[in-house]
């Protein structure tokens, strides 16, 4: 599996994401600078966290119009797995690849702490390696992770099982329905505020995030085997 980690000016979790794929999964991974215009060579696309373009105007608003984004949209339509973490999630929302928008955290503070999440839907290409309703520990680090959508969108998300992760026991940022991560209707674009790439190694004290990447790899191997056999 060949994975692209997209890098914008101001991305700062790109190395963590690269490390999670390269050393956590042991798979091929490359950085792709935002001025590139194609992602045809890649099987999976990661949009990492950070502060693309300094969060000017709104988080993700300017990155959404960078040269690489039409290729991200094309990959999304082609059904490739696309994972946006933190600022990556904000970029996916601004790009309209996922519904809703981000607001400032309810308490107005930047929160950086390991947070329990419930796996609400383990029947996705990103979560097959988790148990249904399993509680996992994943770090969050954001000031603008208060997910918002209107009532109708929330109803659709819940009816289609598009809410993949919820905050467990305590909602840190005030997000609608305790949402921490959502997937698109086709099931190949996942956006989440918590950082699975920061929880892939015992030396980091936590490996709960690794199974997310293992799920993507397992899905790719299964679909790849189906094509070649």
């Amino acid at each position, binding site marked *: 599996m060949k994975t692209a980690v997209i890098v914008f000016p101001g991305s700062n979790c790109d190395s963590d994401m690269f490390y999670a794929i390269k050393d956590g999964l042991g798979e091929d991974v490359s950085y792709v600078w935002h001025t590139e215009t194609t992602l045809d060579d890649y099987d999976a696309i990661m949009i990492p966290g950070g502060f693309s373009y300094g969060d000017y105007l709104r988080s993700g608003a300017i990155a959404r119009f960078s040269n690489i984004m039409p290729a991200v949209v094309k990959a999304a339509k082609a059904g490739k797995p696309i994972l946006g973490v933190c600022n990556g999630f904000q970029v996916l929302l601004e790009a309209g690849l996922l519904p809703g928008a981000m607001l400032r955290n309810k308490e*107005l503070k930047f929160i950086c702490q390991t947070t329990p999440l419930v796996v609400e839907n383990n029947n996705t290409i990103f979560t097959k390696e988790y148990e249904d309703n399993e509680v996992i520990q994943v770090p969050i680090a954001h000031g603008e992770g208060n997910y918002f959508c209107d009532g109708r969108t929330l109803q659709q998300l819940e009816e289609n099982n598009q809410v993949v992760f919820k905050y467990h026991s305590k909602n840190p940022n005030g997000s609608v329905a305790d949402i921490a991560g959502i997937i698109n209707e086709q099931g190949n674009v996942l956006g989440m505020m918590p950082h699975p790439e920061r929880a892939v190694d015992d030396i980091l004290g936590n490996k709960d995030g690794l199974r997310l990447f293992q799920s993507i790899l397992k899905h790719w191997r299964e679909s790849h085997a189906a094509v070649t056999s």
Partner: protein
Amino acid sequence: MKKVKVYITLRESVLDPQGQAVKDSLHNMEYKNVQDVRIGKFIELELDDTADIDTQIKEMCEKLLANTVIENYRYEIEEGVMQ
């Protein structure tokens, strides 16, 4: 040359924690009659005249300047000062 003033505000249905914090501070300063505070953005554009400036500004607002999931926008067009 035209000068365009764009006002971006949070939709009524969206809570504004920043506005709440400022309201609490105003209350602490004894301005007890402050009922609500909503914080928005003000953007000034200077642009060359085009035939359909309204369409252009609406596009800019909908695509980039505002996020219509959470924000409303309005704008005023003024004659720009010749440089």
